[in-house]
């Protein structure tokens, strides 16, 4: 996948159209700008702020769990904390961050000037800040935030003070519906863009795997998100307008809500994870200097994961009055997920095998994330086995498992992506030493924190408890201390990003000698991305090409 004008790949000529604007560019990010690159950065920076908020909530939760008794926050506040932590981390950090990263990269990777619907793109971003602020504002309500967990199962979510129309749960639902609208708009945009905006010669099997994964994830948004929106609207009617869809004392059925909810929220895991796998597929070849092993099967496996993930939602409900035939059916389908994900994990490993490894920060994060994904995947297969799941369902084993996925895999992949594309996005190079420090400060505490949750779950400590039996204290203290370190690990990252963005050394066009159309543009890319639309003649991950192997210019911004 190269572009025919064989510009020297490491030429550090500055982009002409970006010069004398540097003192004004920050204003663009606070404006209604329709350029996908600006929107991408807006998404990424805003969601990172929500990530910090969500992380603070998590540290409060862990601080409460340092001791068996409830002594830091009172119980309603504790329930509000874990509800908001889950909601923020999923709906205001990972999903929109992936949308932002995809926004930035997809047009560049497929050789397009912009997304299909730039205006819709800007709208879908600008829905998010109000929705996020609305959600946070519920902390200041007299009776606080939603307190029913991010699942918000009825009837517990419907137990709010009856005399208040505007309550935490109401705000939670409205905010989530808004975020859902934003996601749908984004999904329409991505699927259309990937279908229609590809450069000449960019066939489906010449697309980078990252584009494949965005495509699969956004298809899932289109197919499954309406189920959640429907569930939330029905829940809102039950909550505020006296209907009885989910009220058991009035012949409603609370289990229906669980089905609707998980029909979206299981695929949501893959909406979060697939782009992360896509990031691994970009970063690992670049730093191992090998083509991605079995590119075609990895691309198909990406779609395969998306397809299978639509039919596994009941595995979240194995104990929810689910009949045996349904338990067994969904156990079988859940097991199927292991096949395409296994193909991916083996392909990553084979890419690293007999390679020429360069262990820069993005590679460290990608390898660390891939390694921990294997751990999370193993516990995932265990959880798919119904008899075992019945024991650990709703315990910390599950919490440990999905944090291995959402933090140790997806957030690590996100960090890998930030470091990997940072020179492209900002035109400057980050500080490598600080990056490595950040990796070790993330990798080790993350494992300490989330591994500790598995033994707790096996011993039967339930999730969402604000106080627990003294026998569980040991592992809880370890997990809490790990989580405080994890919170501290973001400080070198922030310092590195802010400092490098402002004062870092100028980056060359392709600091990693990587393939891919995004590296053929200047850093940062010009407003229309390409001087002329490239013509693609080669398959992706073309790492044998001397063009990428021969270093013309030793200075690559390190």
């Amino acid at each position, binding site marked *: 996948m190269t572009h025919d004008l064989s510009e020297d790949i490491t030429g550090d000529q500055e982009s002409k159209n970006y010069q004398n604007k540097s003192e004004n560019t920050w204003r663009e990010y606070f404006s209604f700008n329709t350029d996908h690159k600006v929107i991408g950065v807006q998404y990424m920076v805003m969601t990172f702020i929500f990530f910090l908020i969500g992380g603070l909530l998590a540290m409060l939760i862990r601080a409460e769990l340092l001791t068996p008794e409830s002594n830091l926050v009172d119980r309603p506040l504790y329930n509000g904390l874990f509800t908001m932590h889950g909601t923020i981390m999923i709906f205001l950090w990972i999903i929109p961050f992936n949308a932002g990263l995809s926004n930035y990269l997809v047009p560049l990777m497929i050789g397009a000037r912009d997304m299909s619907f730039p205006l819709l793109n800007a709208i879908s971003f600008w829905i998010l800040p109000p929705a996020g602020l609305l959600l946070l504002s519920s902390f200041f309500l007299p009776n606080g935030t939603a307190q029913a967990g991010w699942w918000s199962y009825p009837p517990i979510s419907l137990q709010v003070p009856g005399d208040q129309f505007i309550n935490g749960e109401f705000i939670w639902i409205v905010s989530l519906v808004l975020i859902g609208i934003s996601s749908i708009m984004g999904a329409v945009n991505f699927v259309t863009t990937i279908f229609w905006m590809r450069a000449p010669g960019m066939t489906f099997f010449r697309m980078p795997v990252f584009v494949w994964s965005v495509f699969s994830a956004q298809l899932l948004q289109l197919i499954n998100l309406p189920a959640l929106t429907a569930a939330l609207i029905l829940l809102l009617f039950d909550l505020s307008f006296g209907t009885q869809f989910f009220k058991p004392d009035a012949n409603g059925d609370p289990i229906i809500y669980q089905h609707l909810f998980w029909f979206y929220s299981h695929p949501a895991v893959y909406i979060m994870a697939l782009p992360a796998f896509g990031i691994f597929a970009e970063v690992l070849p670049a730093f191992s200097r090998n083509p991605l092993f079995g590119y075609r099967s990895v691309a198909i496996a990406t779609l395969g994961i998306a397809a299978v993930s639509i039919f596994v939602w009941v595995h979240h409900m194995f104990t929810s009055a689910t009949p045996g*035939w349904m338990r067994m059916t969904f156990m079988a389908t859940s097991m199927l997920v292991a096949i395409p994900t296994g193909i991916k994990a083996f392909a990553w490993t084979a890419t690293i095998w007999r390679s020429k490894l360069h262990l820069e920060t993005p590679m460290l994060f990608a390898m660390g994330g891939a*390694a921990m994904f294997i751990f999370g995947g193993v516990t995932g297969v265990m959880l798919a*086995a119904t008899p075992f799941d019945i024991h650990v369902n709703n315990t910390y084993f599950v919490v440990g498992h999905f944090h291995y996925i959402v933090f140790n895999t997806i957030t690590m992949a996100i960090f890998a992506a930030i470091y990997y594309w940072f020179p492209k996005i900002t035109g400057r190079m980050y500080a490598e030493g600080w990056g490595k420090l950040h990796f070790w400060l993330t990798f080790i505490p993350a494992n300490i924190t989330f591994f500790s949750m598995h033994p707790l779950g096996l011993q039967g400590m339930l999730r969402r408890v604000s106080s627990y039996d003294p026998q569980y204290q040991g592992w809880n203290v370890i997990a809490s201390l790990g989580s405080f370190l994890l919170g501290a690990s973001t400080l070198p990252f922030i310092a590195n990003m802010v400092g490098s963005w402002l004062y870092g050394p100028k980056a060359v066009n392709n600091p990693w000698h990587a393939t891919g159309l995004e590296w053929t543009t200047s850093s940062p890319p010009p407003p229309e991305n390409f001087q002329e639309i490239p013509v693609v003649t080669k398959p992706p991950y073309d790492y044998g090409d001397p063009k990428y192997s021969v270093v013309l210019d030793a200075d690559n911004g390190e």
Partner: protein
Amino acid sequence: MFSVFEYVLMAFYVAVLMIISRWIGQQAFSWMPPQATTEAQRVDDLFSFLVSIGVFIFLGLIGIMVYAIVFHRASPKDYSEGHPSRGDARLEILWTATPTLLVVWIALQSFNIYQQLNILGLNQIVHLHTPLESAPAYAATVSDVPKPASETIDVFAKQWDWSFRYPNNVTSNQLHLPINRSTRLNLQAQDVIHGFYVPEFRLKQDIVPGRKINLVLTPIREGKYRLKDSQFSGTYFALMETDVYVESLDKYNQWLTQTANSEQTPANQAVAENIQPPKTLFNSGWYTVAPAQPAVANKRKLTNDT
């Protein structure tokens, strides 16, 4: 692709992995709470099996990664290609087939074990159609003949209180179960979804208001356990616990007769905390549902406290 020496090395590595994963799989039993029901033994066998397979795969892939990090580092200026291979149909078929066979194996094992649990009494609430009745091949310790439960106890869950009604109409806040006899629990919830969970029993069942849900279990280990609410049920969720006693049939019957004649004093953690909240650093003062008064509680004679 590989030299003879590398094949030998790989075979050796796989053998070592098998030994290690087998050993860790054996350790897995000790990570669980004590086995207090026949169901628990089955679940732990399955867990041990899953741990063995999981450790094998995890260490196998991590080993390759570590090997690559140690032996395949490039010098900083070397951007040439590692190996020109873009894929290998045989290898890809192999690694597609491997997880497929593995998960089929895991699924069959789990299905077998689930069938045994089912026969022992994880019976269903809604029979949309009868599950396949295939008797599992191996049944070492317990006879798998379906049998009606010898005791039936009604379980009532409400925010945040457990109460139990025994066959002789005694109601108590404690769950007493006779050992080595199958007991049917009729689970009912009053307000929100609760969950019946005793870690040592390895059984968990959500209790949905408006539905009658049955759970049959056979305790095999005397002792005192804690029953917990496993489905988030609101403010005092963490306090919705009560004692479970597994005791000999004589003791059980003795307790029943005693309780029938003893006075009742309600006592409930959630109620107590609602009246007298503990001191916390941050007090939100947010609304909470008032805990339901416990239906009944029994002051027990000391003779039963074992």
